[in-house]
């Protein structure tokens, strides 16, 4: 890290880059930022357009091309308030619940795999095999779980409950959580724990009081990923809920059938579902980048 920072001034030899290269660089960057940002802009403006402005457009600039109105947002928090709140709350509870569980279980297993030696005799598996088995679960096609989950959830009356969604999302999040946390603990020196244990702390106390506080960045990364996955998930939410526990993505996808396509209302609803995670993401950007690259860069 330090080395690279020292090299930065060398990299900054701006004079060496010809003007046309700089122009090209900025052109590409600005073009791609436009590609990324314009759809968000379009959602935002559509959510304050009158229906006629949506279908007789396209109208680009508020106050010039069209007169913005707050009606759809008022509808969402007025007539539709009950529905909006319920679905938002459902998403929040199932995402938060599975996040908490994934972080706890993921940190524990990650710590175990990083600090102890396991050997599953019957399979002949050591730590690396176990870790690989755990991460491989993340890549199983969810379609294969459709039938057994419906049968299992019906048998245990978990359909349309928070518990059911939380359990399913926790299962999907654990592999990645274990992977990131193991990687994180591997990079954490054992000396501190050892000295704490010499001073009489139990393994659990050392884990709770010394290891976890030091691994806050890893925990935050795991929490963000788990939350975003659960918040955005569609297939299982659709399949395991029918009324009480329906989450935002299912509500949005359903707008197609129930009310005809009211783009202005869908846009407001979509922003409602997307903005919270984007804010979380933007605030905690450095943790995300770190988590994304945790497994990948080291190979």
């Amino acid at each position, binding site marked *: 890290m330090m080395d690279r920072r020292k090299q930065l001034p060398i990299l900054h030899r701006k004079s060496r880059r010809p003007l046309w290269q700089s122009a090209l660089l900025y052109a590409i960057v600005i073009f791609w930022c436009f590609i990324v940002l314009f759809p968000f802009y379009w959602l935002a403006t559509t959510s304050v357009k009158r229906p006629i402005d949506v279908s007789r457009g396209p109208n680009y600039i508020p106050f010039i091309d069209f007169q913005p109105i707050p009606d759809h947002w008022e509808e969402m928090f007025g007539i539709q308030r009950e529905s909006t709140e319920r679905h938002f709350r459902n998403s929040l509870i199932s995402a938060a619940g599975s996040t908490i569980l994934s972080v706890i279980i993921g940190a524990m297993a990650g710590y*175990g795999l990083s600090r*102890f030696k396991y050997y599953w005799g019957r399979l002949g598996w050591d730590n690396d095999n176990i870790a690989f088995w755990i991460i491989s679960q993340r*890549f199983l096609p969810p379609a294969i*779980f459709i039938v057994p989950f419906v049968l299992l959830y019906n048998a245990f009356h978990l359909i349309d409950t928070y518990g059911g969604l939380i359990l399913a999302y926790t299962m999907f999040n*654990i592999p990645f959580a274990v992977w990131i946390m193991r990687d994180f603990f591997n990079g954490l020196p054992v000396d501190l724990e050892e000295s704490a244990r010499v001073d009489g702390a139990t393994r659990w106390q050392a884990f709770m009081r010394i290891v976890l506080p030091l691994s806050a960045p890893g925990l935050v990364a795991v929490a963000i990923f788990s939350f975003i996955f659960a918040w955005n998930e569609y297939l299982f939410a659709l399949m395991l809920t029918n009324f009480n526990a329906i989450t935002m*993505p299912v509500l949005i996808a359903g707008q197609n059938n129930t009310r005809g396509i009211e783009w202005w209302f869908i846009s407001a609803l979509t922003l409602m579902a997307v903005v919270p995670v984007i804010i979380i993401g933007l605030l905690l950007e450095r943790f995300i980048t770190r988590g994304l*690259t945790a497994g990948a860069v080291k190979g």
Partner: protein
Amino acid sequence: MPNSLTSSMSTVREDKIMKRVFLSPAVIILLTLSIFPLLWSLGISFTDMQRGGSTIARQAAAAGITDGVGFLGLGFELTSRNYERLLGDGRLHSTVRNTMIYVFVGVTIQYLIGLGLATVLNQPFRGRNIVRIIFLMPMMMTPVAAAYTGRMFFDSNPLRSPLADFLRDFGKLLGLERGISVPWFTDISWAPIAILIIDAWQWIPFMTLILLAGMQAIPEDIYEAARVDGANALEIFMRVTVPILLPISMTVILIRGLEIFKIIDVVVVTTGGGPGSATESLTLYIFEQALSNGNYGYASAIAYVLLILVIIFATLFLMAGRRLAGGGRE
């Protein structure tokens, strides 16, 4: 001294217990919610199980009927017919083909553009951190929302869609009388392209950010050495950057490939699988067989086809990766 000896012995015993305590919750959840369903659906795939079948069988048993309640009175028969049916199911074949197109074309496009953008972002320039944050935004959007947004843009009516509006004006600029009009969701060859674009819009930034992190980990002296040897920028890119990025490239391609195998939300929201079954993905077909038609047995058999495709893809890919990596070392 003896004190520390006993404490170290109790520590050993404690560790033996704690070792299990730490790993068990994760393993138990994966065994019950992943491995068990996996085996169960393998079993179901060899039956003709239908939705509600077991309820009917239970009612029949309660009424004292023993005929026609199936294997062990569970309401289904053991059969291998599902796997025979796979071979002649034309709709299944087109969903397999569509899924393969999404995976291979999707990953290729996303990787190439992602690599290009990462190369650009690897140059120092003002505002790079803000750009990196902007790049995170599409990934955090629920695919359902991205798909709706895509539907607004791929509407062919230039009165509604800014993209259609742009294409019309752009076409006129090129001298075409009516401009360019693309029948995105109504044409069987354009519809998959629209879906590929929506998925790419969401996930190119993912490729970019990871490849960028990989590039930034390459030490500057390697470039310096190449420059001293007289290599130009393109040669440096092809002979230094790309080979060094090979392992990380394999990882992101594998991750994205496996993710695209799961595609369903974008398809449901944009086309619902149509026109015909031109955009239907395997996951969507399995979902419909299981939950719309209630054919649990057949749905499970198709799900196993998908699983086998995924395993073949991952295995071939890892083998190719190992060979490439071995070749690079020479």
